[in-house]
């Protein structure tokens, strides 16, 4: 479904040149969920942004359905690939109602039948028709993220790019959104690329994942390997340890040095 070959993203030139993504390759099959994990500045979000045309591709190729994507991306691309952003407080227009937010993609792509499709999209993400004419400030964080997901699903895309979809949400709301994403993938046969810094979230939603650091690939591994602690690289193991919570035992060797 999606093939990323030797992707490079570079910002600036000369002395100010920053290589945000260096030579990253991966393949995502139809109906698969693929995770990108790393710390801030690892280039994981930049990969997503490069795929959907929000970051410049300086080298390598991005293939969707076996065809290289055109720059700028055409309408057909956005019918296949849609993105959900991290912060639902920032990604919805504060002065547009849910209805207006949702009718925009339909208008751009000249779709008819907006009325029923909006109602259906809201139903799919578990929001009733009563939410249709509300403004974002009248919604909670979890409800906003549901609207953002509904907007992405309106054009019936095959691929959903999810950029930290739950990191701005409370733990209990995160569980609801993760369940929703899981269910939608099963029902609609979607392909996901999920970016997150939370290993547990990625392992929950994805089968395969790529660990990134400083714009480079550290390793490609599977959720099953993470669960059984069989990561090949030290870096991935340190991420796993950090995600298990604070431990005083792990603190000992380092503090012994400084004393």
């Amino acid at each position, binding site marked *: 479904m999606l093939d990323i070959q030797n992707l490079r993203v570079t910002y600036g030139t000369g002395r100010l040149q920053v290589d945000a993504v260096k030579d990253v390759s991966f393949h995502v099959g139809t109906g698969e969920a693929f995770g990108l994990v790393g710390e*801030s500045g690892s280039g994981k979000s930049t990969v997503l942004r490069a795929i959907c045309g929000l970051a410049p591709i300086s080298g390598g190729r991005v293939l969707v359905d076996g065809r290289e994507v055109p720059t700028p991306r055409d309408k057909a691309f956005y019918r296949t690939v849609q993105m959900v952003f991290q912060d639902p407080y920032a990604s919805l227009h504060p002065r547009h109602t849910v209805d207006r937010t949702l009718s925009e993609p339909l208008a751009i792509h000249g779709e008819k039948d907006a009325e029923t499709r909006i109602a259906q999209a809201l139903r799919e993400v578990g929001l009733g028709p009563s939410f249709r004419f509300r403004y974002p400030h009248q919604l909670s964080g979890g409800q906003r993220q549901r609207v953002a997901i509904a907007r992405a699903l309106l054009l019936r895309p095959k691929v959903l790019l999810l950029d930290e979809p739950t990191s701005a949400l409370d733990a209990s709301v995160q569980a609801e959104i993760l369940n929703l994403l899981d269910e939608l993938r099963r029902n609609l046969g979607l392909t996901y690329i999920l970016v997150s810094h939370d290993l547990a979230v990625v392992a*929950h939603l994805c089968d395969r994942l790529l660990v990134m650091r400083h714009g480079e690939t550290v390793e490609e591994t599977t959720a099953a390997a993470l*669960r059984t602690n069989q990561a090949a690289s030290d870096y991935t193991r340190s991420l796993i340890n950090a995600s298990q919570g604070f431990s005083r035992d792990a603190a000992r060797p380092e503090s012994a040095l400084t004393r």
Partner: protein
Amino acid sequence: MTTKPLLEVEDLRVRFHLRTGTVEAVRGVSFTLGRERLGIVGESGSGKSQTGRAILGLTPPPGEVIAKKLTFDGIDLLTASKRTLRTLRGGRISMVMQDPKYSLNPVMTIGEQIIEAYQAHTRSGRAEARDKALAMLEAVKMRDPARVFSLYPHEVSGGMGQRAMIAMMLVTDPDLLIADEPTSALDVTVSMEILRILDELVAERGMGLIFISHDLKLVSSFCDRVLVMYAGRVVEELEAKNLREAKHPYTQGLMRCLPTLANDVRPLPTLSRDPAWAQ
């Protein structure tokens, strides 16, 4: 060890009188704190941050703080003069905020800010304050304290900024440190490093610590005792190591709804909120 608790809070209430009515953010919170690590956990809007702010007298203007008892080391914080509060704040009680990007002064070097904090609470010369600031930067494991001393906040990373803030807050040797989500703006590996430093300093100096966070797992692995807050109330208080035996359905729900690497539950159990929890 003194037998008298460092901080006593009884029936603390924080109210905001707004045009649309009165909102009670904290509704009758009571706890005592010795020289230990206390965690306060809750989701957004549970009143955990307002509890921390009320102790320091930092409740923003339309807010009102009422309590049967709010004492720090025998000093009544509710009736204390502004002058007394000023000497306590930053001197004997200090607070580490969430995001170093917003809570450090952008137009002052890190060193100057630490010196300012030190000189506000001690009679000391410039040279002494400078030595103290450098020693503090070293205590938070800055690789090159002299260099960091002369940097501006925008020139350092988030983790370094947060360490600088901890240095600034601990330079006056406080008895109580309130840390409000000190690591939520940071990466996991960086936040572990910050917690390790915080843990060491708190243990070394025998301070009391209030650690406010939304992350139940993190708090329980870091603190001795945990208060779980929901809708402005403490719904459960328990020893961190007994977290697994939590009785309240809210605490249990919070624990269960997190995806874990260890076991794959699908769909994740979600939290059904019982209005009775908020009473």
